[in-house]
């Protein structure tokens, strides 16, 4: 091997174009810092502690007195005692294998069918994560080792008189991490699950919301060159399908002030460093096709 050849290879190595996003990625990573995963968990931990205390007391009373439970369910402020708490927590901590799986549980809904079906879903989702993690861990151990981690948890996005919105997230770390978030938005008064289609009179909402999101994406890209979404923009070439429209049952929730928020998973509409993008849809954009103004204001 001649030095000349190695030098040639080295030149090619050094010639790899540096994307302009690199600055942004490095700065963002430093800013998010070590709080990244850890804080996400810590925050959840705090919620658990305070909620758990309140709920433990409450369930004790409910269990003791069926009559009391019935009375409470009939009291108008019933909405306020619908709570989310951690039902179960699985932790695996073996040097390169880390799992912290938190199963949420909703309590206090008078509609027990809804409550049970949601809680069953949460348990099932997390059991699947756990089983998959154990299987991956075995496989990786057989193949000589590696690092994997999984964190799952939840966050109460909205909790007001009408709405309880719970986000469940899964952060999967094996080298680059992927994050998926799912939401359940519950009407505490009617005790029903709100779905995206149920908010609208007609199917046009898919097109209207998608159009608005694409507009927001373009505006963000225009005002900040570090932001990138996978849409057609200024003739930029895309190596894959651009974002076209939201799914009929796209992830969403309703925030504290009554805005519709559409959410995407990591990689769904943007490169990984953009995280899990969320878009607040201005209410006037969808006002005409809303079924009512009870949830969205």
């Amino acid at each position, binding site marked *: 091997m001649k030095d000349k*050849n190695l030098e040639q290879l080295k030149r090619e*190595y050094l010639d790899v174009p540096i*994307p302009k996003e690199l600055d942004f990625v*490095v700065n963002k990573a*430093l800013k998010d810092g070590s709080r990244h995963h850890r804080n996400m968990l810590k925050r959840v931990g705090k919620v658990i502690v305070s909620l758990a205390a309140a709920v433990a007391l409450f369930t004790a009373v409910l269990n003791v007195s069926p009559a009391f439970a019935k009375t409470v369910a009939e009291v108008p402020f019933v909405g306020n005692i619908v709570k989310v708490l951690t039902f179960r927590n699985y932790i695996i901590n073996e040097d390169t294998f880390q799992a912290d799986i938190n199963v949420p549980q909703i309590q206090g809904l008078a509609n027990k069918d809804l409550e049970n079906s949601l809680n069953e879903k949460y348990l099932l989702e997390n059991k699947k994560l756990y089983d998959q993690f154990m299987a991956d861990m075995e496989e990786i151990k057989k*193949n000589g080792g590696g690092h994997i981690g999984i964190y799952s948890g939840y966050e109460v996005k909205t909790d007001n008189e009408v709405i309880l919105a719970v986000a469940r997230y899964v952060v999967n770390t094996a*080298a*680059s991490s992927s994050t998926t978030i799912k939401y359940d938005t519950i009407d505490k008064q009617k005790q029903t699950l709100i779905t995206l289609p149920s908010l609208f009179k007609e199917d046009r909402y898919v097109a209207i919301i998608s159009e608005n999101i694409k507009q927001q994406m373009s505006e963000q890209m225009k005002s900040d060159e570090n932001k990138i979404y996978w849409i057609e923009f200024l003739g930029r070439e895309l190596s894959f399908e651009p974002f076209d429209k939201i799914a009929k049952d796209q992830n969403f929730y309703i925030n504290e002030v009554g805005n519709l928020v559409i959410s995407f998973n990591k990689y769904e509409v943007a490169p*990984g460093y953009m995280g899990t993008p969320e878009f607040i849809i201005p209410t006037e954009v969808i006002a005409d096709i809303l079924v009512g103004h009870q949830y969205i204001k």
Partner: protein
Amino acid sequence: MKNNLEKQIAEYVTKYKENHYRLAFSYVKNPEDALDIVQESIYKALSAKDTLKNSDHIKTWFYRIVVNTALDFLRKRKRVGVMDEEILSTLEGGAVDHYQNIDLQRALDALPIKYRSVVVLRYFEDLKIEEIAYILNENVNTVKTRLYKSLEKLRLQMNDDVREGLV
């Protein structure tokens, strides 16, 4: 004290971000994933800063994180079964046509990862054998053997591809 360490890490990763990007790119071969690896490596570095015993070793310490993150990434991709890493590197080698010497580049890309790693770290990043041994978590002799074998393989492959002309 701790904040000081964090500051040193921040300064270091900012100053040498291009090196880290190139290193990550040499494994994953595409900008999106390479950016992801840089980002993830910084997260890991900050959350594991206590494992940096001596700030003089920050360079090899961080390189080790980048290499491990990239390897984990490739392993995951392999498991997901998108594309075999070696097929991928052959394809990439063919698709990019600005190389002045395609065969040479292809020969390097065709090397198994553990051989390619030592070539990259030794000749392109100009690290010492001892430093490479630490980064790859191997002993010095293993690194030397791999380096020797890599050069051997490169030479063989080039001979097969272009029997003459590369003397």
